[in-house]
């Protein structure tokens, strides 16, 4: 008797399409602006006091979420830069170099404590000025900045333990130029190790996000740091160039684009200036079929949408093993829908404002390039605020290795998804980039993790996690992502000469 075979039922996807249009609304939960004070105008912080710029010029800094002016800051010209470098040199020769290391340490500890005390205010200003969600500035940027000062403070009187068989000497005056994506945190990353190792500082924050660095200047003043040890001056590219080219600067520490990094490297040729360059990236984030997929998807989302994707180490290239690609892409799209885009000061917000109009234009330019190159775009259906610079979280599938969205740094909430079959193939693809800042791998198999983390040419490799930072953990790139390390024991060396 013939057995009637049951007609196979179409295979159901094992993911459930979540409906986000029903009961997923959050009530607004805005952080109050009243806990922060922003002056109408800021001068330059030189030699421990606020000085009017020689240029007599000021420029506006705006809130990118509202396109409203927050304050205006001084535009430092060459004369101002010179004043700051002279102040830093004097402070180095007369005070800082001679001060017992343990006293130096206590100043830095003091700064760390004051950043903690003013954490709420700093977080609010960071979100106002830069557009990042208050959840991130409150829980990540500000505490990590304070911790960075605290960590390096302790190193000041222990340097002889860091480099076996060598004595250490500070370099002198460090010129430091930082970007707009983590304004306060980058200031901490630069200033803390420089001071701990006995150098003095001229720091320039980015022109779109100067306010928390200026708040930090107030803290430094309040901490009674000897005048001139830290000078904070504001301005745009020309100000930065004046710092780089100043003959009495011994060290350039720069975080920013690879293009500008190369300009700096050329500019300091023929001088004895040392440099640390922390530049762009196009990190590969790799998901193997045996990975815990929900965790991986969460990690990928955090990897690319953290801080609106304005992260040099963002996981902007996703490589998914073919066998799970469909499932992962489906989960990613679902998760994309649930991201809350909007007011940076709202505590529910996942994705805040794009930092500036020009950056928004860059991102749109790349989205159009991606479409033109034949990749498939998918963006969240979320509504964007009527005013301000916002961008929907976006992903591209069917991306080719040679596509510009897979090769070039976009610095925005745009993920390029590619697929692979074998370990060797994905290593080849992941390393096929002039950058080498960070990388990620997701798999449940321990030996595979170490195989991959070893072979990926990047300075920071996250396995089954992504975008984690810590003061004790060295950060910095391979290849065209720059050189030198920031953080940890290895972050000391860029500010020291080793002597026999």
């Amino acid at each position, binding site marked *: 008797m013939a057995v009637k075979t049951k007609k196979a039922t179409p295979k159901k996807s094992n993911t459930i399409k979540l409906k986000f249009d029903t009961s997923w609304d959050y009530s607004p939960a805005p952080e109050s602006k009243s806990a922060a004070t922003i002056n109408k105008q800021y001068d330059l912080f030189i030699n421990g006091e606020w000085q009017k710029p020689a240029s007599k010029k000021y420029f506006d800094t705006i809130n990118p979420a509202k396109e409203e002016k927050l304050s205006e800051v001084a535009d430092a010209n060459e004369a101002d830069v010179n004043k700051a470098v002279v102040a830093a040199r004097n402070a180095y020769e007369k005070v800082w170099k001679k001060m017992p290391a343990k006293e130096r340490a206590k100043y830095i500890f003091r700064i760390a404590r004051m950043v903690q005390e003013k954490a709420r205010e700093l977080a609010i200003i960071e979100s106002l000025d830069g557009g990042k969600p208050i959840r991130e500035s409150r829980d990540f940027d500000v505490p990590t900045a304070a*911790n960075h000062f605290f960590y390096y403070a302790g190193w000041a009187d222990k340097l002889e333990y860091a480099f*076996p*068989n*060598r004595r250490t000497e500070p370099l002198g005056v460090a010129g430091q130029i930082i970007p707009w994506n983590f304004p306060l945190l980058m200031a901490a990353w630069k200033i803390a190790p420089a001071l701990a190792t006995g150098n003095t500082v001229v720091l320039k924050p980015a022109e779109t996000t100067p306010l928390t660095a200026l708040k930090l200047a107030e803290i430094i003043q309040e901490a009674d740091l000897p005048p001139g040890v830290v000078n904070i001056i504001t301005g745009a590219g020309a100000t930065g160039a004046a710092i780089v080219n100043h003959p009495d600067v011994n060290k350039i520490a720069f975080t920013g684009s*690879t293009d500008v*990094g*190369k*300009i700096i*490297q*050329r500019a*300091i*040729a*023929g001088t004895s200036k040392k440099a640390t*360059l922390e*530049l762009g990236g196009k990190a590969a984030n790799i998901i193997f079929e045996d990975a815990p997929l929900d965790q991986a998807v969460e990690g990928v989302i955090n990897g690319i949408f953290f801080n609106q994707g304005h992260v040099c180490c963002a996981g902007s290239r996703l490589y998914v093993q073919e066998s799970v690609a469909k499932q992962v892409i489906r989960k990613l799209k679902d998760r994309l829908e649930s991201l809350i885009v909007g007011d940076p000061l709202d505590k529910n917000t996942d994705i805040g404002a794009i930092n500036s109009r020009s950056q928004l234009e860059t991102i749109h330019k790349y989205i159009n390039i991606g479409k033109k190159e034949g990749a498939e775009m998918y963006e969240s259906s979320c509504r964007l605020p009527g005013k301000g610079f916002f961008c929907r979280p976006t992903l591209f599938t069917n991306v080719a290795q040679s596509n510009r969205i897979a090769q070039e740094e976009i610095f925005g909430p745009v993920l390029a998804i590619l697929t692979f079959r074998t370990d060797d193939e994905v290593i080849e693809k992941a390393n096929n980039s*002039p950058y080498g800042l960070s990388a990620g791998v997701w798999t449940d198999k321990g030996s595979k*993790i170490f195989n991959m*983390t070893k072979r990926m040419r*990047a*300075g*920071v*490799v*996250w*396995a*089954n*996690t992504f975008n*984690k930072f*810590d003061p*004790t*953990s*060295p*950060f*910095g790139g*391979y*290849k*065209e992502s*720059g*050189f030198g*390390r920031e953080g*940890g*024991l*290895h972050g000391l060396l860029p500010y020291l000469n*080793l002597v*026999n």
Partner: protein
Amino acid sequence: MEKTIKKSSLTISENGLEKKNASRRLEVLKTYKIYIGGQFPRTESGRYYIPTNAAGKKLANVCLSSRKDFRDAVVAARGAVSGWSGRAAFNRSQILYRMAEMLEGRKAQFIDELIQQDSTKAKAEKEVNLAIDRLIYYAGWCDKFQQLFSAVNPVASSHFNFSVPEPTGVVAVIAPQGDSLLGLVSVIAPVIAGGNTCVVLASETKPLCAVTFAEVLNSSDLPGGVVNILTGKPSELATWFVDHMDVNATIYCENNSDTQKMMREKSATNLKRIFFYDKINWYTDEGQSPYFIMDTQEIKTTWHPVENIAGAGGGY
């Protein structure tokens, strides 16, 4: 019938038979070639130059390497990176030690060449001895510097986090012009001890030892391509040593400020790491240290979560 040797027409010397009254045995001259990918080709350019010693004696017809030779050498060096860096550190250690053994065995030849290049016997002996000892020194470091310069970083979150040095890749080296053997060995050894591969331009005026050193390398189980040695002019080739997009780091040992400026400028092309070892006395202890190894290392930091189940205790 018994063959008799007429002593009147033949003399027997230690070296064998020689015709009476013949001129002394003709010396076999060595062709000094370059060393790429474990082979000894001539320069593709077909060019040569003739370095002379202080007395004006011609040393040899030496290959005048071209940009193309350099590029070929980089291809060989790049091809050797994954194999060499993938070797166990202990294995690299043994190979460097083997290099020292081979050099020790050919001491006389190196001393002879150094003397041809204007050294005195005493100085040449000292230089060769130091070169051998330097290889032994770095052989010992191969599997130790990582322990010294690594860190387990006590991050505040629940992660295991560690930083280790890794070779940067292909290193282009313009060797010291003066100490043609000791300088050469002192710059090559730390680069390869750390797992990098290299392309080295020998001393222009004193190239003999460099080529003979390639023969030492060739018989030391050092895989082809790990060290590639060119002869030629730094003034011609320096620019390509920093311009090449597939070179990760460049080392230059002369105190020529124009060249240094040019090199640092061009190093920006692909942000290769650049080092000037122009104030180092290779005869002293300052000429050797694990910090030389660290110059051509990158620090990689790896993170992994540590499961943190609520209420779990410390285990002790």
